[in-house]
């Protein structure tokens, strides 16, 4: 898209210019100062919090990738996937199988992470090709993707027998696969194993920031322009000379790769992956995070996911058996009162106040 006479520097500048744009909320110095403050606060957080809270915060960050991926697929490209967990689970198992066979030395766990994401993304590419080039549309995308994840779950649940092994790794059926090493950084002397705690937290925070900014650039680029146009009116986009199926498939693969990143990280975090992470309940969760936060904006998706995860967890801690009832009610309220999502609603509200003050 960038013409040939541009120098590397102006190319960087034009990429950075894409950090802002009509596809993402938040612009101007005020927004970026707020973002920098948020990141700085997130970076300073482990200094004030205890080990569990930091590890727990890292755990929340793990899920944001899947949510942002779904945000791209659903919020931006307009295809509601009910089966992101298929890519999540596949990558989780891939990480387990690869690390159990290769071990954790020489930073091989990082290689495993990359491979797992690639496998998940590739599988999403195949499913996306199958769907979009097969002219599957609307709610049927949700049903096909849900079927895919349920097939995987049903299949994995019965792999308890000893014959189900890949190299050293036993799939271990419904009880789940465990014993894989956590992410390990090669280090002078001894490798550093990233158990949940500050080091894993910083790694994840860095990844979240990179992915978030990268997605902002992508969504405000011409690729993102076409995605939202497809969401609004796929027919017209085709009649402007774009291959709609290709764009949808690519967006789906990107969303799948993000879900896969969550899956591999989750497996490394808990050293455990189970078929139920691909089941109906798990499949519905990302949709809730994204819907409650606001699907049409990547910032809202990110913030919303963390807020909802933390909120639901504290509800479970303090609300005991009423937690699920409150969750259900929250969903209803969101849909009826703030259909754009609670975070988008709040951001719009703040933006309005801010503008009023200025004028």
């Amino acid at each position, binding site marked *: 898209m960038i013409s040939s006479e541009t120098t590397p520097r102006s190319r960087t500048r034009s990429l950075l210019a894409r950090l802002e744009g009509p596809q993402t909320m938040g612009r101007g110095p005020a927004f970026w100062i707020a973002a920098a403050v948020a990141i700085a606060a997130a970076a300073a957080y482990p200094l004030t919090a205890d080990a569990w809270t930091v590890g727990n915060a890292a755990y929340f960050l793990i899920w944001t990738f899947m949510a942002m991926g779904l945000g791209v697929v659903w919020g931006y490209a307009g295809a*509601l996937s009910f089966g992101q967990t298929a890519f999540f689970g596949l990558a989780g198992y891939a990480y387990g199988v690869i690390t159990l066979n290769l071990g954790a030395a020489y930073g091989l766990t990082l290689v495993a992470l990359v491979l797992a994401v690639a496998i998940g993304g590739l599988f999403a590419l195949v499913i996306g090709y199958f769907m979009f080039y*097969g002219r*599957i549309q609307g709610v049927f995308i949700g*049903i096909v993707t849900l079927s895919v994840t349920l097939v995987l779950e*049903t*299949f994995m649940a019965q792999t308890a027998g000893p014959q189900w092994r890949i190299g050293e790794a036993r799939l271990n059926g419904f009880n789940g696969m465990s014993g894989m090493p956590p992410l390990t950084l090669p280090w002078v002397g001894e490798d550093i194993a990233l158990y949940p705690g500050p080091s894993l937290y910083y790694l994840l925070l860095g990844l979240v920031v990179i992915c978030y900014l990268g997605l902002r650039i992508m969504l405000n680029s011409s690729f993102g322009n076409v995605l939202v146009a497809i969401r609004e009116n796929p027919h017209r986009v085709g009649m402007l000379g774009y291959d709609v199926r290709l764009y949808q498939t690519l967006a789906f693969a990107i969303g799948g790769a993000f879900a896969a990143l969550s899956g591999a990280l989750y497996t490394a975090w808990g050293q455990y992956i189970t078929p139920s992470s691909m089941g109906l309940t798990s499949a519905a969760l990302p949709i*809730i995070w994204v819907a409650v936060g606001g699907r049409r904006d990547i910032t809202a998706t990110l913030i919303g996911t963390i807020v909802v995860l933390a909120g639901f967890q504290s509800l479970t801690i303090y609300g005991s058996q009423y937690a699920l*009832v409150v*969750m259900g009610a929250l969903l209803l309220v969101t849909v*009826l009162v703030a259909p754009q999502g609670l975070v988008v609603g709040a951001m719009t509200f703040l933006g309005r106040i801010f503008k009023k003050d200025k004028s």
Partner: protein
Amino acid sequence: MDLLQNVFAMLYQFGDTFAFLVISCAGLAVIFGMMGVINLAHGEFIMCGAYVTASAARAGLPLPVAILTGALVAGAVGMLVERMVIRHLYHRPLDSIIATWGISLIATQGVLIVLGSTMQGIGTPLGSIEVGSRSYSLYRLVLMVCALGLLGGLYLLFYHSRFGVIARATIQKPHMAHALGVNTGRMYGLTFGLGAALAGLAGGLYAPTMTMVPTMGATFIVESFVTVVVGGADIFVGAAPAAAILALIKAGLTAWYGQLFGQIGLLVTVILVIRILPGGLSGWLKGTTR
């Protein structure tokens, strides 16, 4: 004799699966197929029907009356839900998924809190019949008859009654119907209520054969969605043949390869059908695949 016995066994298995698919998908077919609302609380309407039926039966009502009570209560709850929630979401089908999922969460957990984690069952009536050396549940034969009766009844209702004609007109051309003086809001409410009542009926019919727990609706939901999706938008043209084909696939795979393949086969079928026939069976049968 042996051959006859095997033929009957196969027919029984097919009929049993067919009945399960038809009865459990009818309510969803009305709500999803006609109104385009993806109702994830379908299973909870089924649970509602089952619980009411069981309570009514234990209170001394004869089973058929208890089942009807279950259907009516589920229908009333459905109309209430439509009024309070679904009505605001007709133009946002994806949001209705989320809203109905919320309702489903509230219903499942609410019932657990209020009524406890299980409810005593009511037992399957009618006993069994012997065919050759094997015995079969008579009640399940009744369920097969009910499935056929249900299809017939719905056909009559939607094609040969005033309500049905108006309902179809309202849902296909709401502005036109409104201009003709139809109370479209009421028609939507009634149609949704009918779908919920049919789900309640499914719960009532299967209540005597199942474990009564708050999450019991979940065992219906995948099968119902699969049937409706394979059937396509027109439930009468699509759902019955879809149920027949799926029953054949599922019963066959289960008989020859075991339950696992029955389950997986069902899901793979739905993926392939959507891929090959985007309009579902009804779209294909009508020859207007768009």
